């Protein structure tokens, strides 16, 4: 099995992820403050730590939806951790409890950076990249909650466009080779086809079938 990088190397490699994650955390804080108060958004960023799910749950609460609907939206957004957990599981060492603890470090950008493309994952990169994003996400949320009332709508500042740009930058950096590009094309097409009618989150989970192009002979 290939060597794992040190966590420190992971932190260094992931430093560029810090500023965009901070800005996204700040825009979550700004948008959440009028709906959730000042404490709940910060606690949520600490214990849930998932941008996509937090924004999905927030949009339900902001529209006056019940807790059940907000939870469902968040769970569906985060259900992609299931296939991602099955993918990364074989690369995590230790007993069941240790693996469950390390699994908490799975977030999109870290998962992608840690993926070696051969089915294995670099644990040091996973943990280091998540450490960077954790600090940025928590401090960004706290700052957004604190200064939010003094700021204009984050949409006016174009902050919502940071999400797709962030993922596109990761895609360009990580998708190497024809099969990776084909998997990406299938994933994008599946999501676009399902979005007009499928419930929130489902178009993203379904996109994982794009990885099945790996079954083709090379």
């Amino acid at each position: 099995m290939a060597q794992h990088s040190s966590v420190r190397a992971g932190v260094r490699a992931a430093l560029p992820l810090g500023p965009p994650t901070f800005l996204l955390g700040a825009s979550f804080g700004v948008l959440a403050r009028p709906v959730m108060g000042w404490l709940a958004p910060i606690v949520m960023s600490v214990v849930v730590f998932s941008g996509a799910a937090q924004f999905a749950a927030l949009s339900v609460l902001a529209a006056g939806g019940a807790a059940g609907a907000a939870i469902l939206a968040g769970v569906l957004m985060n259900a992609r951790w299931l296939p991602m957990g099955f993918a990364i599981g074989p690369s995590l060492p230790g007993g069941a409890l240790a693996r469950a603890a390390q699994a908490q470090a799975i977030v999109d950008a870290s998962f992608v950076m840690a993926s070696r493309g051969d089915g294995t994952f670099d644990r040091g990169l996973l943990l280091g990249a998540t450490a960077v994003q954790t600090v940025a996400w928590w401090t960004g949320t706290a700052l957004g909650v604190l200064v939010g009332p003094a700021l204009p709508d984050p949409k006016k500042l174009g902050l919502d466009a940071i999400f797709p740009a962030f993922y596109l930058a990761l895609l360009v950096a990580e998708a190497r080779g024809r099969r990776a590009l084909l998997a990406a094309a299938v994933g994008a097409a599946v999501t676009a086809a399902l979005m007009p009618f499928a419930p929130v989150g489902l178009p993203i989970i379904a996109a994982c079938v794009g990885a099945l192009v790996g079954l083709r002979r090379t």
Partner: protein
Amino acid sequence: MSAVWTTVVVLCIATASMKAIGPVSFGGRRLSGRAASVIGLVAPALLASLVVYETFNTDGPGIALDARLVGLAAAGAALALKRSMLVVVTVAAVATALARAIA
């Protein structure tokens, strides 16, 4: 408990469980060649999906064409010029904000 705190607590438990299920059931194994080549492609498929989703999503099912598309195009141009992550996301935000200001 209020709707807000119920959401925070239940989402926390659900998220931690969904992350843990895979690694707890499949830790430290060797993969077959076919499984490995599929798993290695989850990351690009997922990323491309997230790009599409975050560009076009609305609050429910549906597709919205709005200024985020301008931001994504600007990000693509910055990436073609091999700019850093920070420049790419800043360019996307500025282009989107400008498009909204003009519209």
